[in-house]
């Protein structure tokens, strides 16, 4: 069983009037009120105050007031609608979402359908013989080649990347494309 001091009890009296006290706390409060005259008087005072507050509500202005209210508000809403009908529909448009989604869609379209994400700048190997010739020439110019990176790394002015596939045979790699980056005005092929 919990003991309640008078300060706490007065808080609970207000909470109880506000219907915010659970059953256990209400029972504890009732036990305290049964033994404490001062808190019982305070409870009566709070109850009177509460009733007075509830009774102090202004009276309803009446049906005529509300009819007039609706008519005049409708008139104002009509004016507001006719003043800026376009602005309203424009403001209703989800601009923030559009600002994110549309650029993302455009970027996706450019990358996927137009291949502007890097593939278009790469040079495809059209035939195996041409590929062999290219490798020979690159080897003559830059030295031996690795499987994936033709050793542009050894030279400051050029980097060549070659991508392979196994489409030609099961064991032998076939280059699909290559790309060469160099400093401007440095002929390498």
């Amino acid at each position, binding site marked *: 069983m919990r003991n309640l001091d008078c300060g706490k009890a*007065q*808080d609970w009296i*207000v909470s109880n009037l*506000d219907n915010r006290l659970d059953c256990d706390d209400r029972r504890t409060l009732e036990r305290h009120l049964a033994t404490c005259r001062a808190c019982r008087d*305070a409870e009566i*005072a*709070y109850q009177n*105050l*509460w009733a*007075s*507050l*509830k*009774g*102090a*509500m*202004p*009276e*309803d*202005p009446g049906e005529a*007031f*509300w009819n007039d*209210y*609706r008519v*005049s*508000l*409708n008139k*104002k*809403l009509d004016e*507001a*609608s006719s003043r800026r009908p376009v602005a*309203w*529909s424009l*403001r*209703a448009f989800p601009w923030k979402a559009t600002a994110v989604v549309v650029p993302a869609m455009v970027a996706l379209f450019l990358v996927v359908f137009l291949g502007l994400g890097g593939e278009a700048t790469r040079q495809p190997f059209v035939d195996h013989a041409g590929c062999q010739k290219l490798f020979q020439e690159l080897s003559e110019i830059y030295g031996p080649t690795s499987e994936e990176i033709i050793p542009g790394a050894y030279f400051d002015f050029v980097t060549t990347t070659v991508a392979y596939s196994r489409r030609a045979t099961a064991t032998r790699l076939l280059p699909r494309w290559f790309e060469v980056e160099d400093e401007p005005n440095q002929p390498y092929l």
Partner: protein
Amino acid sequence: MTDEELLNCVRAGDREAFCRLVDKYAKPLTMMILRMVKDREDARDISQHVFLRAYERLPHLLNPSSFKTWLYKMAVNAVRDHLRKPRRTFVPDVLDGLADPSDSAACLLEKEHDKRRIRAAIQDLPLKQRMTLQLRVFEGLDYEQIAQILGGRANGAKGNFFHAVKSLKQKLDTKK
């Protein structure tokens, strides 16, 4: 229809849906304003101004489920602005018309006296406590909603409410 469904209709251009929202909230909102400003014409003007602003700003309302709180917040801000303005004329108190015709003259006088004391005591409260008290007692809003409307936290709103009730009791006790 829920507020959310009605708001979706309004956003799709249905004015009638907005009128249904007005029908739902006009009375409680105007009565709340009336309790604060104590003048019917002012209360009507403020309430209509709030609905017009709501109509214009609906596209900016991100969470339609909080429409009621949003509306009350605009109303409370409008009331604050109104109360900051200096009073132009004497405003008759709307609580003056509360007399019950069945009461005796002495009883009427006593009731009237009590009401005046309570009104004066409420009027003496700080604005935030007064608004908290009114939103809790008359509008039945919970502390979370009151905090959203007036700013701050639910515990702060609860504290304001307790202070308001205790201050009122103290004022009324000392004036007896």
